[in-house]
C-alpha cells in the first residue's frame, strides 16, 4: 500500500497511467472550451437578432417621420 519504497512500475506500464492522467486534464479543458464556444455562438446569434430588431425599429421610425 505504501508508495514510499514500493518498486517503480516499468516504463511501458507507468507510461500508460501518466498518459491517462494528462489526457484526462486535456479532455476536461477541451470539453470546457467547447461548451464555452457553444455559449459564445448563442450570444452572437442573440446579438444578431437584437441588432435586426433595433434596425427594424429604426427603419419604422424613419418611415413614420417621412410621412
Amino acid at each position, binding site marked *: 500500500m*505504501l508508495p514510499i519504497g514500493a518498486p*517503480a512500475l516499468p516504463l511501458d506500464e507507468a507510461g500508460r*497511467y501518466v498518459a*491517462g*492522467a494528462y489526457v484526462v*486534464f486535456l479532455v*476536461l479543458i477541451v470539453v470546457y472550451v467547447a461548451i464555452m464556444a457553444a455559449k459564445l455562438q448563442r450570444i452572437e446569434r442573440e*446579438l444578431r437578432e*437584437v441588432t435586426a430588431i433595433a434596425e427594424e425599429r429604426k427603419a419604422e421610425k424613419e418611415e413614420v417621420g417621412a410621412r
Partner: protein
Amino acid sequence: MYGKGLRPLSIATVAMLALSLSLVFFYAPLDGDQGFIQKIFYLHVPMAMTALVGFIVGGVFAILHLRSGDRRWDAYSYVAIHISVIFGVAVLITGAIWAKASWGHWWVWNEPTLVSFLIVFLLYATYYPFRYAIEDRDRQARYASVFAVTAGAFVPLNFLAVRMAQSLVHPRVFATSNGGLPGSMMLTFLCCLAAIALLWVTLVKFELTAKSASGQVKRLRRALDAPAGRATSRIAPEVS
C-alpha cells in the same frame, strides 16, 4: 470590460503550460522510488492546490458581496467556485489514476488526504442545487454567498485537520525529515503551479467575459422591449 487583457493572458497561459510540460518530461529527473509514474505529481498537486485556493477565493468574493451588496462579487464568487469544481474533478480522476499505479487501488478510504478532498469536492458540488433551489435572485445571491463563506472557511480547517492526522501514507514531499524535493523537481513543480494557477485565472476571466456579454444582450433586449431569447440559466448570476 471583462474581455480586456484576455488574449495576452491566454497566450501567457499556453506558453507557461508548454514550458511546464517540457520541464516535466525533459528536465525533471525520475523519482527514485516511483519512477516515471511520479510525473503525475506535477499535474495532480498543482491542480489540487489551485482548486482549494480557488474555493477560498470564492469565499473572499462572497464576503465582498455580503459587505457591499454588489451582485458583481456574487458572480465572481460563483465563477471562482465553478472553475474550482472543474479542477476538482480533474484532481479526483488524476489522483485515482496515480493511486491505482502506486497502490494498486483506484481509491483508498483510510487515506485522510483523499477522503478530505472528496468531502470538500462534494460540499461544493451541493452549491449548484443549493442555488437552483432558490427562485428569488437576491435571496439566491445572499444565501449562496453565505454558503461560499462557510465552505471557504472549512477548506483551510480541513487541510489542517489532515496535516494533524499525521498519516504517512500520502507522501509529504515539501518538508520531511529526509529533506524536501530536489531543486530541479521543485523548479518544475513551481512552474507547473504557476501554469495551472494562470489557467484558472484565464478560465475565470473567460467565463466572466461570456457572462458579461450574455447579460448585456439581455439588457439590450429589455431596453428594446424585444421578446426574450432562449431560456437562460437560473443558477448563474448575471454580470453587468
